[in-house]
């Protein structure tokens, strides 16, 4: 009897583990290209941008190349931005919960303590609802899909139902010294 119960428990735990297995999303380090489209409910056209990114140990460098150049750093202690390469970064926010969750999201580090997770009809996708209210004030819902080994899409929906679609394509998991330098706040 006990053995049967143990078997049932084991089966239950193993299916749970398979359902919430986000290891394929996780990127300890890597780089690639992104494209982003912001759909505001009151605008007819989406605001589009594209550029490069570098991820290293939950530090994210987000380099928009068009239509205008800007650099953003998502670090555990804050989000920083600069519009001109030689100038110093300016801090955008120091809200640790939002910083760390955004950085985790982009580097595929999905944790059940941060999100209420439901699998989408499409087996590659998950629907994430932030558990922390501060984060929920920023985006109410996140749709995360792994299209293949190197591509993923993230759709952030805010309280006003505006959507931000991000497509990330990884081109390499190897980082050069220069890549390692750009994910650091050197100024």
């Amino acid at each position, binding site marked *: 009897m006990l053995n049967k119960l143990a078997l049932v428990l084991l089966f239950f735990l193993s299916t749970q583990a398979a359902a919430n297995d986000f290891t394929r999303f996780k990127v300890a380090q890597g780089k690639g290209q992104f494209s982003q489209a912001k759909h*505001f409910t009151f605008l007819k056209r989406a605001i589009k941008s594209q550029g490069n990114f570098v991820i290293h140990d939950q530090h994210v460098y987000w380099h928009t190349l068009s*239509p205008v150049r800007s650099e953003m750093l998502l670090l555990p202690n804050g989000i920083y931005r600069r519009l001109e390469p030689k100038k110093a970064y300016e801090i955008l926010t120091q809200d640790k919960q939002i910083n760390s969750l955004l950085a985790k999201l982009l580097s595929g580090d999905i944790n059940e*303590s941060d999100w209420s997770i439901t699998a989408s009809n499409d087996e590659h996708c998950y629907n994430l609802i932030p558990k922390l*209210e501060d984060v929920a004030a920023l985006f109410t819902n996140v749709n995360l899909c792994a299209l293949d080994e190197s591509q993923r899409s993230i759709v952030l929906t*805010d309280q006003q139902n505006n959507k931000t679609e991000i497509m990330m394509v990884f081109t390499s998991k190897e980082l050069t010294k220069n890549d390692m330098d750009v994910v650091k706040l050197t100024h």
Partner: protein
Amino acid sequence: MTWMSLNSRTKLLLWGLQLLILLVGLSYLWLFKPFAIVADINQIFTVEQSEDVRLVNDKVEQQQLRQHVMLVGHKKRSNAIKYAEQAALALSDINGIEVNIHFGALPELQSVVKDYLPYKYAFLSEKYKHLLQNKTAGAVFNYQFSLLNEMGSPWVAATLPSDPNLGLADFFNQQNVPSMKLKNYQGYLIAQGEIKNGSSDDAIYYVLINFVSANTGLDLNIAKDIATKVNDIKKQSSEEKSGVNYFVTGAAFFTADASMTAQNEMTVFGSISIIATLLLIVVIYRSALSVFCTLFVISISMLYGYSALRLFFTEVNILTLVFAVTLIGIAADYSFHALSELRFSKVDRFNPLRSIRASLLLGFITTTVGYLILVFTPLVLFKQIAVFTMAGLLGALLTVLLVYPSIASFIVKKPSAIPHFVIQLNNWQQVILKKRLNYWWQSCFLVIAIAALSMINNVDDPRTFYKSSASLVTQQQKISEILNAQWDSPYILVAGDSSQQTLERSEQLAEDLKQLQQNNAFTKYSSISQWLPSIAMQKKSQALMLQAENDGLFNQLKTLLELPYTRNNPKLTQLDFPTWQKSQIAHLFTDQWVEINSRYYSIIKLQGINDPKMLERTLNNYKDVVFVDKVLAVSEQVGLFRHHLILIYGLALGAAMLVFWLRYGLLNAFIAVSRPAIAMVIALVISAWFFDSLSVFNYVAGILILALGLDYCVFYAEHGLCEKITLTTLISALSSLFVFAILIFSSTPAVSQFGFTVFIGVVMVFIMAPRLTLVSKRNI
């Protein structure tokens, strides 16, 4: 007929009469004069401030003293609320406090935006204004696009439909919303935190309870009630059983803790000192009456000290009472001198204390002069200690001179033999006296010791003088972390004759504050002017935006957003201060605005202050702007006082020198005053070596060393190196040591430092004082 030639009965009558007057006076004070014992250690330091700064600072301090916070945490929100309700109910039993657990709605993003939207173009960040002034359309578009494209800012979506130029979104982006960690849930303010659970973090809900003492300031009894009640609440629902945890902070908890520590120390130290002193008396005088007499003298001296405190002060710090224990050791000395005289000498039956009368008076004068100087110090703690000790010593002297003659016949049956070890000690003193160092070596040593002292690190920071309970400090840090409210206690005060003038003056600081921030003088600041620019500034922003619109600086963005290029001249209005005060966000700044006597004060809060002196220097250039840093002001005052102490030492030694000069001549007077001075320097050098630094409490201990040392010198100078004086000074030194050595174990660093220095000083002065024997006419 002098008063000393009065007979014993008349003296006793006189003593009774003056005690009666004292008791009547004390009863009057008890009934009609307010008096409180305060445990807030910061109140022992008063800082000189201009009248208006003092008024505002008092108000700010009173507010801080009254405010208390409890956070009740649980993994389940419903449980956190349940336990918080229980705690609030229990706290509301305490008289004199008002408990709040239900609160109005907190500002939500949309409602904050709604308050600002009617004032088109009035709110721009410095960066945005700078871009508009440069009139480069490309740079303006780049900036606007980066705002539009940004992840992590809710303001763009909230303002874009009404303000497509994104000026308002950028303005809000630059702000730090205070206390936004708290969310209103069904009338409760709840913050979410995280607790480590193995490798992952679990969310935990904290419900806020705020309680405020009804009166201004904080009554010690209410503080104790609050602390006791909170302990009961914690005991009733322990974390292991219920999963609930409580964090508390506020002056009541620190006050109650300081008071408990001081009371415990007073009880333990006082008891040990008295028991040790009484045992000493039993061993030396072998008489129960001697014990009773000494106890009586100590009690009367305490009564005198207490009466003086009630007469001269309305508030006495609890630390004064800890220091007051030292009176036991000094007051008992008078009893010892008298007992030694009565027990070991052949005394005059009609005037038994005749031969030590002058010495007692001279000792009293020199000790009192030492303490009298402390009365003129700027620190109220030292004033209180000095008043208490001087009055106590007067009581002890009067009791010994007026009461002891009446009981002399009970004490003196026949002269007793002096204990053998005292005779041996006396012999040893005589040997030492012959082998004394010559004056050159003494002077050389003194110069080296003073040079060493001048190089020692002196610590004037008042926060190092006392130690708060580690648990309370941890809870305070935890609450700051959960509520994201880690402001430092120093702040910038900006004053003006109108609200607009105050706002304009705050704005003028912005550039320097930014510079100071870049120079790492502090990390963050919060000013009302960040959320509400002055009307003049709002008009300037509006003019810039209209000009930019006319210049076509926004056309690129309009094209992207497919908005029409309409150029109209809308009627622009500005947000004034009274209207802003009714806004959602203003509720979070009520503690940063004060109006007193038709003057308007804005308090700029600071975080992560690293260089208060740089801040003070920079802000000194502005009119009606003050950097209020009590710790810095007190540190400076303590430092100044430390320097003044050198003068005080000089005055004390000078006064003693004068008295000795009149009695023993110039050279002998110099020898007399140099003994305690050398003892003091040695005590300070050893203290500096022991503590790695010196504080003002070590230096103040120097005054006591001088006072006690001069007292010993008087007796050796008056009576020579006789066995009776060796005995008296030995008992006196031992009784003082019992009192001061025990203070070394105090948990309050200030008390411990004071005790250590006096301890070393008394040992040194006991060894050196017999040198005065050579001055004595009676000699060896």
